[in-house]
């Protein structure tokens, strides 16, 4: 792989929780514009990896290079502002807000008007608000969730919540989008929709995506390259076809049916 083109380079990450080693010396890169899947059995350390990338966990060893520069240790909200958006395995939405407000909040760091400008130049603030609103409406159309625009998301079924969460991450116009099991717990139809959205995001917005997924069929369909993890270590890395034919991977992962 050509290192200089990597949007993100993850090098030798080791992460421990007390006695548990969640990640051990894991390295891989994420190229600009690709869909990078991370697969592996439960407890393999996939979510931990995503949490390290988004700054929710801080590794004991190793480093992350973003756009060619080593990223210093920083709090997760600052990493988000650098253009890394994410969804969570257990869905973290603003459950008391509507779909529209949730997705609007995804743009909060792109919004300029603060309290003072709001009071002094009401007109300008309104105009900015409506510009953001337009972009958010485009995302709502894109994800086909017009009918639930005004519904508090706490009341939505699981599958739709996952979709809103994707919308909120997209609203930030991220350089790197991290999706932790975006299709978990969905029925076949919902999964197909989600697959389509992920591919469309890549096509239409050119967003680089790293996603965790269990369903091998899905992984083969959507991803350009795959990292395979087991017991906190990387045991495979390559195109879906390469990974599928790798004996280690077959032993460790494909034997475990989900």
């Amino acid at each position, binding site marked *: 792989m050509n290192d200089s083109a990597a949007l993100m380079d993850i090098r030798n990450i080791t992460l421990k929780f007390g006695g548990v080693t969640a990640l051990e010396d894991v390295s891989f890169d994420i190229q600009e514009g690709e869909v990078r899947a991370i697969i592996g059995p439960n407890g393999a350390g996939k979510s931990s990896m995503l949490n390290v990338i*988004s700054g*929710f966990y801080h590794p004991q060893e190793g480093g992350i290079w973003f756009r060619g520069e080593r990223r210093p240790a920083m*709090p*997760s*909200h*600052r990493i*988000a*502002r650098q253009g890394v*958006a*994410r969804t*969570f395995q257990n869905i*973290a*939405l*603003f*459950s*008391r*807000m509507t779909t529209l*407000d949730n997705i*609007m*909040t*995804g743009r*909060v*760091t792109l*919004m*300029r*008007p*603060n*309290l003072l400008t*709001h*009071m002094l130049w009401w007109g300008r*603030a309104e105009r900015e608000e409506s510009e953001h609103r337009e972009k958010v409406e485009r995302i709502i159309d894109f994800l086909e969730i017009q009918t639930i625009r005004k519904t508090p998301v*706490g*009341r939505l079924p699981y599958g739709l919540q996952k979709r809103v969460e994707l919308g*909120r*991450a997209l609203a*930030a116009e991220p350089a790197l989008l991290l999706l932790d099991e975006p299709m978990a717990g969905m029925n076949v139809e919902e999964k197909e929709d989600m697959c389509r959205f992920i591919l469309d995001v890549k096509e239409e917005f050119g967003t680089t995506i790293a996603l965790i997924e269990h369903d091998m069929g899905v992984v083969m369909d959507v991803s350009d390259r795959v990292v395979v993890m087991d017991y906190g270590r990387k045991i495979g890395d390559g195109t879906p076809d390469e990974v599928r034919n790798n004996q280690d991977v077959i032993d460790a992962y494909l034997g475990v049916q989900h």
Partner: protein
Amino acid sequence: MSQQLLYAIEVSLNGLMAGVLYALVALGFVLIYKASGVFNYAQGVMALFAALTLVGFQNGQIPFAHLINEIFGTQVHHFGWHLPAFLSVLLALAMMVLLAVIVEKLVLKHLINQEPVILFMATIGLAYFLEGFGDLMWGSAIKKIEIGLPYGPSDSIDQFTYDLFGYGFFIDRLDIVAALVAALLVCFLTVFSQYSKIGRALRAVADDHQAALSVGISLRFIWVVVWSVAGFVALVAGVMWGAKSGVQFSLSLIALKALPVLMLGGFTSIPGAIVGGLIIGVGEKLFDFLLGPLVGGATENWFAYVLALVFLVFRPQGLFGERIIERV
């Protein structure tokens, strides 16, 4: 109009004015509750501390004078200046912002992702600390606030109602000012929490810490902002109550009045705090006026709580509070 009815109207009007002051205190609670799901036990003490600081700065009191004199055997008490009211309000405000920064650094920062009850305990600790600290810094003598607020009954209202009904209402001018200030404050807070970028971030933090972080919101910054605004509200409440009854320890007990207001109006609603305050203010005064003599008076001490409890039975989330929906 019958004399009895006129009395009742006058009592209600005074109740409304008292209610505005209750609402002011309750507002401070609502702000912090909205942003962190915590009942800030220290809000009342913050009002006391803010008022003490205002008076202290204005009169050029040397902070910790007692302590300094004990240690160094000196006899210092005053800088010898008298600051204009406006400047001392600004300084007191700066002090409340500083307090917010310190609270965030020393307490909140270490309690991210903890249960609300732990945060609640922390605010109890903060209340006792701040009470002692205020004492040490500014002394425990009762102080008067003199920043040019009007006192005494409003003559024009007296005259106007006399001409109208043949009975002049007694309305304190201080109460009228308090009502106006509260109205302004509410407008400010509504704009603040509904329309500004910070308001949006504030609601996000209140809802889900992780999600807020993931969209780039700094929890710590939001907490400093929220506690600063709560400090500002405490300053306003402290000044208004202090102007009425002197700046003294009992000021911190107004927090106890805010609790029934919140139960009535809902812990998360700014309009709820206002309406709840007004209902309690009027209800309390009217009840005492109508039924006080029958039950031996002093109903103001307990009426608010009984009203709030009765209310809880029928509408646990309060008038304007959000319904709690549990996912199953």
